[in-house]
């Protein structure tokens, strides 16, 4: 017998059936009906202080669990506050479901209170969005949303629910897989690679003399870290991991070269530059990786594996394009290589190439001048100490700027899904809410948020959420009183004309602020205080901790490939400049 329930009840039931265990959100007028059945649901709701926080929490949750994060907010300003996290999730291919309230269907188009064109505004920052016009459509739309968000190239999907749609009664029906697929005739993501292309890739890999595995975020999305490791070891080829792929290949593996790109290390950058074959796996030739595209890896042939056909040839034309899921395709490539080897074919000797790469590594390690007693605290030193003091399996989140680059450079990511950051959009303020979402997704792990003082001031209020909801994250503010990365550019490219980058050395008082939000606040001003502060922070597990590291404002991120410049002209640390010629 059919059962009549409201659209709101159908929504919550559908979310339960999609195995949602947590919703990050904040109620308001038009979404009110959905908050009532939530009281009777086992789903945990985390009440945020600003809707943007809910979005980034959902992202952080998705980053570390691989399951879509869910955010629910009301109409109008709440929906517009979600635009930044949606765009962030879209750029970084994070599966996320956003549910927004909307004015009643009868009021749509009348400029009603808290009305905005949510689907219109979010169209270009979501993988898909829908305005649901009938309560009967709710279950199918929810199923479609989860299917679209999590398959193919993952991304955010928004469902806009008018108040009357939530209030109206409907006949419950949970659509089958077939019904979902039939309702989406235009959505057919490809997951298996083309067999002929895979064979061609295998042959090209064996023939390469200077190959590099270029691993991007797609490795993590496809749960392909094990497959990547097997491939790298089979062909004994060095791996670079982009900002989005840190942890996809263990940093302590002898074949790992670490991060390439604008602030990558000189070895990773140069190895790509000089390679004759870039085996590109779930990466998209982002401008932060390629530098000046015309001179990027000029002698390299390109194998490009990506689940999104539009990435093939968008920036660099591949010699062997393979559209498919990274894990499945890598497994097929491994098979194809083994078949060739078993058939008597041999891989080119790449030992000369590998020793050349090793030479660069020895000559150009990451470098910063260590603290002399009485000198200002170095941010890199704080990160090294955080890294060394971190319990096994710690998840690191970061905001955007210098501290993000140092985090990626100095942390050792030996496990996938332990690095959460805003790569594509570069969203300042991402760190604190993303760390909260990550801790909710992985309560068994220690979660550190490394933040800048500029970033922290954008979303810090979510620490109230963390305290109230008992989500004990740890925040390390690398506080240099500046918008540090912008300051660095002004120093290097604008003749030290510092324009609007100096924040304040005294304000706010981060320790008092932390305490007022229910956190433990610790201030660190000298190198000797670093280790004890970190030990103390790591020992606290009943509330959030904020450590305010007062660091040297003059410290810059090196290496650096200035925007629009060729990767051949990477600026190494000034103290290494004398060896530059060896990167040739």
């Amino acid at each position, binding site marked *: 017998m059919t059962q009549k329930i409201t659209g709101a009840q159908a929504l919550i039931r559908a979310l339960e059936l999609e195995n949602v265990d947590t919703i990050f959100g904040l109620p308001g007028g038009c979404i009110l009906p959905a908050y009532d059945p939530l009281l009777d649901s086992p789903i945990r709701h985390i009440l945020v202080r600003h809707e943007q926080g809910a979005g980034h929490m959902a992202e952080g949750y998705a980053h570390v669990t691989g399951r879509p994060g869910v955010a629910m907010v009301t109409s109008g300003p709440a929906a517009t506050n979600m635009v930044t996290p949606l765009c962030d999730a879209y750029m970084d291919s994070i599966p996320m479901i956003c549910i927004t309230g909307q004015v009643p269907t009868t009021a749509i188009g009348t400029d009603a209170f808290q009305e905005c064109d949510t*689907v*219109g505004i979010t*169209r*270009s920052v979501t*993988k*898909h969005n829908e*305005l649901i016009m009938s309560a009967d459509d709710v279950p199918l739309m929810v199923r479609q949303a989860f299917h*679209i968000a999590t398959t193919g190239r993952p991304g955010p999907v928004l469902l806009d629910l008018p108040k009357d749609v939530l209030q109206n009664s409907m006949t419950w029906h949970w659509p089958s897989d077939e019904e979902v697929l039939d309702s*989406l*005739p*235009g*959505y057919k993501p490809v997951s298996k690679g083309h067999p002929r292309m895979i064979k061609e890739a295998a042959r090209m890999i064996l023939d390469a003399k200077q190959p590099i595995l270029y691993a991007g975020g797609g490795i993590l999305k496809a749960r392909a870290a094990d497959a990547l490791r097997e491939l790298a070891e089979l062909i004994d080829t060095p791996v670079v991991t982009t900002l989005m792929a840190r942890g996809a290949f263990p940093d302590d593996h002898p074949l790992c070269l670490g991060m390439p790109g604008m602030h990558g290390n000189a070895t990773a950058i140069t190895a790509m530059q000089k390679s004759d074959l870039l085996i590109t796996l779930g990466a998209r030739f982002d401008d932060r990786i390629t530098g000046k595209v015309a001179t990027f890896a000029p002698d390299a042939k390109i194998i490009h594996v990506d689940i*999104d*056909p*539009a990435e*093939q*040839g*968008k920036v660099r034309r591949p010699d062997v394009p393979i559209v498919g899921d990274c894990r499945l395709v890598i497994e097929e490539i491994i098979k194809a290589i083994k078949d060739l080897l078993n058939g008597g074919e041999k891989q080119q000797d790449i030992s000369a190439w590998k020793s050349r790469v090793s030479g660069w590594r020895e000559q150009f390690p990451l470098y910063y001048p260590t603290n002399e007693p009485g000198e200002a605290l170095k941010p890199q030193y704080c990160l090294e100490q955080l890294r060394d003091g971190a319990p096994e399996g710690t998840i690191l989140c970061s905001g955007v700027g210098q501290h993000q680059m140092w985090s990626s450079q100095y942390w050792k990511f030996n496990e996938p899904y332990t690095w959460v950051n805003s790569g594509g959009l570069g969203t300042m303020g991402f760190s604190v809410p993303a760390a909260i979402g990550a801790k909710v997704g992985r309560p068994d792990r220690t979660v550190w948020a490394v933040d800048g003082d500029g970033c922290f001031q954008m979303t810090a209020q979510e620490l109230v959420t963390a305290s109230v909801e008992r989500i004990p994250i740890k925040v390390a503010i690398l506080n240099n009183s500046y918008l540090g990365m912008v300051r660095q550019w002004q120093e290097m490219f604008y003749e030290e004309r510092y324009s609007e980058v100096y924040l304040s050395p005294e304000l706010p008082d981060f320790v008092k602020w932390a305490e007022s939000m229910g956190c433990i606040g610790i201030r660190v001003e000298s190198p000797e205080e670093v280790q004890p502060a970190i030990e103390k922070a790591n020992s606290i597990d009943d509330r959030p901790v904020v450590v305010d590291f007062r660091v040297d404002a003059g410290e810059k991120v090196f290496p650096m490939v200035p925007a629009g410049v060729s990767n051949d002209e990477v600026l190494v640390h000034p103290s290494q400049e004398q060896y530059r010629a060896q990167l040739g």
Partner: protein
Amino acid sequence: MTAFNPHGKSLNHGILSVLVQNRPGVLARVSGLFARRGYNIFSLAVAPTEDPMLSRITIVVDVESAPLEQVVKQLFKLVDVVKISELDPRRSVERELLMATVRVPAEDRGQVVELTNIFEGKILAVGVEAITVSLDGSPDKLDDFEELLRGYGIVELQRTGRVALPKLDKEARLKAVKHGKAS
């Protein structure tokens, strides 16, 4: 818009025939994608197809602004887009409709009527000092007609933008004939 005539013969264009789900907001998704990615649309025509669930959007794209391949791939990422056919202008049939009101004194009206008849167009309305004509045909033919009308003084002009379908290849044409005979 670029300076050159979007209807001109020298146009470096591609024609996409895009089958989409017939749902609210689909046109906004398609046109929004063009705007966001910096692709230029020369003309765009939308109408339902033989299947009421589907609509066909015929888009004439400036392939100078972006390679057609990239446009197609980005379009296909839209969930509501079911099928995209690239129509090679040399291997497709294109049609467009033009309507124009020309200011012409009664004594010269005959010339416009004659011109319209030569092009096999239609007279839609006649006034004391003006005449409204229409012409459907290939966009090139419409260009020529428009050019000739211009000499008389066009008051208002509306073109629909082209719609297109692939030319039947020889084999398909023969098959169609055979089927015709068999039945």
